């Protein structure tokens, strides 16, 4: 066959692969949404969950998921950004750096149940945080840091060295170059990493079962003083997230409508991940334009 024909064949194959991946996702999404959306009502989204009768909602779980997401991203984004910058811009190229990089990579493949137990023994028991949102957020940080750090480092590495040289030529220090030149142009990549990380946080169950816990005491949405035990903002209350709730009612729940609740909760979870994705993309583009003055990213 001539190279030109090969080119055509390969292009077709690549198109097919892409279509296949889209089809897989479409199937997954449709499956989740079709089996879940019929159960979603306003009462379901805002209502309180029930431990044995039918007709429970997922209101508190949804709030917990969002709160936990914000809290854990608040800790892990600055940390991973700093660590990624150090690894990419400052770390000397030697065996120690390689070892650190390797260790971080290994950590990211740690089963989340081990992270959960580590968090349970260290945060919940040794640091006396108990089953709480805070220990959940810390466990999720441990769980997420490796991936985020790696992603930040990769995105920074992908920025061409001429950009850095241009920065130095303008008389900027290395640090100034990093934050004014390198980080802004690596932002789309970093942002993708953050979205992926947020998605993982939102869907994680195993690491939270032992840390944030699986009970959802009734909240008092009129009292936002974080020191009150029933306040939604209290970081020391135990908080069951949406993903944990799905896991729980499927594994040990005795509510009669377990499958309906779990399908509905999965649908809501997916919708939120979708929403979050699009929002992050939109604001990311805006931020990128704002920081670099480029019209389109890429």
């Amino acid at each position: 066959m001539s190279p030109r024909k090969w080119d055509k064949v390969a292009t077709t194959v690549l198109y097919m692969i892409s279509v296949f991946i889209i089809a897989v996702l479409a199937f997954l999404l449709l499956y989740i949404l079709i089996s879940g959306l019929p159960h979603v009502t306003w009462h379901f989204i805002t209502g309180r969950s029930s431990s044995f009768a039918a007709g429970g909602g997922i209101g508190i779980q949804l709030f917990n998921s969002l709160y936990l997401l914000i809290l854990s991203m608040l800790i892990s984004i600055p940390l991973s950004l700093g660590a990624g910058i150090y690894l990419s811009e400052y770390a000397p190229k030697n065996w120690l750096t390689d070892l650190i990089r390797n260790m971080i990579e290994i950590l990211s493949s740690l089963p989340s149940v081990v992270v959960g137990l580590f968090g349970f023994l260290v945060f919940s028991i040794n640091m006396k945080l108990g089953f709480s949102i805070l220990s959940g957020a810390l466990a999720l940080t441990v769980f997420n840091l490796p991936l985020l750090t790696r992603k930040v480092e990769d995105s920074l590495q992908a920025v061409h060295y001429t950009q850095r040289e241009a920065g130095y030529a303008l008389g900027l220090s290395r640090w100034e170059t990093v934050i004014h030149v390198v980080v802004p142009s690596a932002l789309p990549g970093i942002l993708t990493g953050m979205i992926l990380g947020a998605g993982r946080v939102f869907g994680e169950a195993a690491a939270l079962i032992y840390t944030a816990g699986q009970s959802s005491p009734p909240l008092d949405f009129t009292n936002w003083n974080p020191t009150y035990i029933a306040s939604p903002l209290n970081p020391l209350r135990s908080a069951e997230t949406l993903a944990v709730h799905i896991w729980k009612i499927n594994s040990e729940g005795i509510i009669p409508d377990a499958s309906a609740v779990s399908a509905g909760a999965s649908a809501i979870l997916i919708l939120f991940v979708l929403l979050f994705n699009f929002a992050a993309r939109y604001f990311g583009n805006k931020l990128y334009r704002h920081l670099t003055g480029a019209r389109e990213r890429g």
Partner: protein
Amino acid sequence: MKKKWFSLFILPMATIILAGCSFKQTGQSITAVGSSALQPLVEAAGDEFTKENAGEFINVQGGGSGTGLSQIQTGSVEIGNSDLYASQKSGIDASKLVDHKVAVVGVTPVINRKIPIKNLSTTQLAKIFSGDITNWQQLGGPNQEIVVINRAQGSGTRDTFERWVMKGRSAVQAQEQDSTGMVRQIVATTPGAISYMAFPYVDKTVKTVNVDGVTPTAKHVTTNQWQIWSYEHMYTNGKPTGLTARFMDYILSDAIQNKVVATMGYIPVKDMKVSRSLQGKVVQLSHEK
């Protein structure tokens, strides 16, 4: 410039660390950890309790009987839930723990709905689970391979089942699942499947079988005609005090025992006509009420 970075990095962390350390919350709470089978019951009771006592919370966590017992032993929680007697678990020093039997739960064999078998003897069951009988035909059913689904080692339900059915025979290496929900779903969808589960979890997707002609009902459990049952324990480290004591009283009160416990499919302890010791000795109880 510096400030911007400072606030971006340090402030959130500082706030969180401060929040974690120097923070006295108002209100009171206790934590109960352990058996996932007991979790819905305690959770429901905790909800009712909080409704009546505002600002007092019962945190109920699962994690398995093993977790419950090791946590109550180290004193990091107030209540440890368990399906087993504490002394049955290796590594637990039961002498310091105080046992509160809050309910009784029956365990029944369940099979896939398509298998037209209504009754099995204890010996037949034992042979199925030890791998001596492998086809439903050997029991008068259709020519269909038996798919045994076991629970994870150390699970309270498995322990109860093996104690009263297997009687010392070791189980065949087969599929194991660590939660009743999974077992139910697999038995419902896999042709020829057999497993066992606690009464509260049985629904119309699976079929229960009689054992030695006795139907698996709460009534038969109370008289020990249905032998596969166990107590649900809530352990405290020493005699309970304060909120823990009040909650233990509450969960044993008639209101909870009659309303919540019975509706969920558990059997209230005071309904039992017999009591059974750790060693399996059965004593008739006389209720004078």
